[in-house]
């Protein structure tokens, strides 16, 4: 491939690619994102190649392995173009039927289609409720692109925004467009990207850097990973445009080493962009030079914080530095450094291509565009969803997410990652945008969304996230290191039934200092899980402390199991499954749990057949006295009488 030396070269190359591609030619796209990969999509791809060849369709059908489509719950996902027929949960053994039926005979394989509540089958991807209510402007191309192919990206219009920026716009115009679009950072703080760019551009110094933050570390979050894995060129294109606007010639991508597919797809993409003259010296013949270095992170959550990330790029320990002078002014090697998150950069080409007005038409007054969320937890349709800012939590969780699993009741949704907050049912109609979430005591963060049902203990949830933050605190400053440590101790004792009157207030007292005095955002936001659960679920804390009761029946120290003598049929299942032999009994004799031996593993409760439901889980009340050993079960008694 010869270097593209002008916008005309790029357009000619694009036209060449398009004319060589027949939009009517069948194409099987197989999601090869991390979720589907784990579910065996590799084998599915191999099976397609084999079966297509075996059926004499080689050359007549394309096979494309793409990035994440989003509906991870139902992977491996296969979409067959041009119809856009979507098959879910495809196994290698399904492939020969798909090839012979759908590809050869144009018939559907019904059992692989999505079925909605009343059993109606849905053929098209866009008609599946999970996708139908999304607005996938950033993430949508993932379904259409082989992330290892720059040709796929260019054929779909890729790098046209870069060409437009370099040849039709001045750096100032690019910056003004991004400012006018009100693009806010998708990584956490929601700071206006254009304003940050302007700060870096105007900061004194000759050398400036632009950086992609791909240190996504929130438990349960994988949107940046999937974007980088599935459409790396969109992030690179955004970065080059930003560099042009800011006047930077050197970029960095700080990406977690634990994201091997993202790293390798990014490496391939950078190499391809260089070969095509889209990166390096004299990009597209514009005279603008820019290149990118990948910095692989060693796996510290705190390194996603801007000053810590920049320390890590410098090669020293990734610990935050005081930043009363912003990193936009004094960052990597004390040079102006503009850091934006993966998703923020991926929005930039769209804004340049379609204009700021188009972007501003999506979203709410203060939060424009869309946001990708990783919807996980006790929701039916887990996966990645991209929705316009301002969609309510209820729409995301129920309309797209399909509601709560197993018909359980919704209890809370945790947004914003570990330093976010838990929002209760009364806030389900909250429009999701930066300001509304912050006002409610949570935050947008990078877009984690963990749904919890009635079986979740909110004190336990606060303990989990606070413990995560204690582990991930770098330990440099006192309030974060020692404050979070003490908060974990208090939460642990509450969950263990040792909570004392005044513990809630003590948690609040520590929280206030951790929030006000910590060095970086990790510490400053670390109290959020505790404060938001106290705010919305204070009664659960009180039940643990005052009544020694865990309302959700989660905290082991506060629950007991016993067998209801009237219901026990002496089937023996619990006795056999108990891992510590705490259950005694024999045929026709009521089984009894030895409370001293019981480790509260919940096994007996789970295995007791629902038609008996003899094992009871209780909290906050004494265990009823057991019947005398040898008591006959009710059914046996009935027979005798």
């Amino acid at each position, binding site marked *: 491939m010869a270097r593209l030396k002008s916008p005309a070269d790029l357009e000619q190359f694009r036209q060449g690619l398009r004319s060589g591609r027949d939009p009517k030619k069948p194409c099987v796209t197989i999601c090869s994102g991390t979720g589907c990969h784990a579910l065996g999509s590799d084998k599915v791809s191999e099976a397609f190649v084999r079966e297509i060849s075996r059926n004499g369709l080689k050359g007549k059908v394309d096979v494309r392995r793409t990035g994440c489509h989003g509906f991870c719950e139902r992977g491996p996902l296969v979409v067959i173009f041009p119809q856009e027929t979507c098959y879910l949960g495809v196994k290698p053994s399904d492939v020969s039927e798909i090839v012979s039926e759908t590809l050869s005979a144009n018939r559907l394989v019904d059992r692989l289609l999505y079925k909605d509540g009343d059993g109606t089958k849905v053929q098209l991807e866009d008609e599946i409720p999970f996708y139908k209510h999304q607005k996938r402007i950033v993430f949508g191309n993932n379904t259409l692109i082989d992330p290892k192919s720059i040709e796929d990206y260019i054929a779909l219009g890729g790098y046209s925004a870069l060409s437009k920026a370099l040849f039709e716009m001045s750096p100032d115009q690019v910056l003004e467009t991004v400012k006018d679009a009100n693009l806010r950072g998708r990584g956490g703080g929601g700071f206006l990207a254009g304003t940050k760019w302007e700060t870096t551009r105007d900061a004194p110094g000759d050398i400036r850097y632009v950086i992609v933050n791909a240190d996504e570390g929130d438990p349960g979050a994988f949107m940046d990973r999937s974007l980088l894995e599935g459409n790396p060129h969109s992030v690179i294109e955004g970065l080059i445009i930003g560099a042009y606007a800011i006047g930077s010639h050197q970029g960095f991508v700080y990406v977690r080493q634990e994201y091997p597919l993202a790293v390798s797809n990014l490496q391939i993409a950078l190499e391809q962009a260089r070969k095509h003259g889209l990166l390096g010296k004299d990009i597209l013949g514009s005279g603008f030079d820019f290149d990118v270095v990948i910095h692989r992170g060693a796996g510290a959550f705190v390194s996603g914080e801007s000053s810590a990330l920049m320390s890590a790029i410098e090669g020293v320990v990734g610990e935050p530095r005081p930043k009363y002078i912003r990193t936009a002014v004094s960052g990597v090697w004390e040079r102006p450094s503009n850091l934006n998150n993966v998703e923020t950069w991926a929005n930039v080409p769209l804004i340049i291509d379609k204009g700021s007005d188009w972007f501003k038409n999506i979203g709410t007054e203060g939060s424009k565009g869309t946001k990708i969320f990783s919807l996980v937890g006790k929701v039916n349709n887990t996966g990645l969803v991209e929705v316009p800012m301002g969609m309510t939590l209820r729409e995301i969780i129920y309309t797209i997410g399909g509601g709560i699993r197993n018909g359980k009741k919704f209890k809370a949704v945790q947004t914003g990652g570990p330093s976010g907050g838990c929002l209760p049912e009364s806030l389900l109609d909250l429009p999701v945008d930066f300001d509304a979430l912050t006002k409610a005591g949570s935050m947008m963060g990078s877009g984690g969304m963990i749904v919890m049902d009635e079986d979740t203990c909110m004190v336990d949830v606060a303990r989990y996230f606070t413990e995560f933050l204690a582990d991930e605190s770098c330990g*440099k400053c006192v309030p974060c*290191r020692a*404050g979070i*440590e003490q908060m974990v101790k208090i939460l642990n004792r509450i969950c263990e039934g040792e909570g004392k009157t005044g513990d809630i207030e003590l948690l609040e007292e520590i929280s206030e200092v951790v929030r006000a005095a910590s060095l970086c955002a990790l510490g400053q936001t670390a109290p959020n899980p505790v404060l938001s659960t106290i705010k919305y679920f204070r009664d659960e804390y009180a039940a643990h402390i005052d009544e020694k009761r865990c309302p959700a029946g989660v905290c082991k120290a506060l629950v007991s199991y016993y067998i209801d003598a009237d219901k026990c049929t002496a089937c023996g299942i619990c006795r056999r499954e108990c891992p510590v032999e705490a259950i005694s009994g024999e045929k026709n004799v009521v089984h009894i749990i030895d409370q001293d031996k019981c480790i509260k593993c919940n096994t007996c409760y789970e295995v007791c057949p629902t038609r008996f439901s003899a094992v009871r889980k209780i909290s906050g009340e004494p265990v009823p006295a057991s019947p005398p050993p040898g008591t006959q079960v009710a059914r046996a008694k009935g027979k005798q009488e």
Partner: protein
Amino acid sequence: MKTVRLKIDGKDVEAKEGMTVLEAAREAGIEIPTLCYHEKLAPYGACRLCTVEITKNNRSRLVTSCVYNVEDGLVVKTNTPEVQKIRKMLLELMLASAPILSDFAKEYGVDAPRFTADVTQCILCGLCVRYCAEVKGANAITFVGRGVDRRIAFVDEVVSTGVCMDCRQCFGVCPTGKIPRETDGASFEGITVRDVLAQSK
């Protein structure tokens, strides 16, 4: 160098541009407590005891005075009830692992500390680590671990060269006396990187 005029605790103070609020206050005879500050070292901002309230453009907020530079017209309050509350809690938190600081903490109202932690008699101010690196240039002391597992430790490969034998400059900067108590500059048993890593396992 340009002179900057600000107000600290009601007192008009003149400072040189580029100075920190802490330096300006101390030069004006206003005491702000610190445990991780040393005039020969780059500010570090770890103990947070020097937190003060500043007002700028009619907006007040808390900042760490050892790393916040003076600005014209800045109004600084070093001892508001909020600042006192923060200092008291920070000292109470530090006392859990360094009870040796109890007299110092009492001065700030901590009489009955409520917390417990592993007693290391170290508040991780990093003065030893930074003094050894920035002033002595020996890099014989380092941090090991993260979060609550963070510890200071002597680097085996460096101390074995004998560089510490007659230096002992870290003894004087340690606010809790941990270092002179646990080493004499010749033997480092228990506080080398190897030992600390072994203990943490």
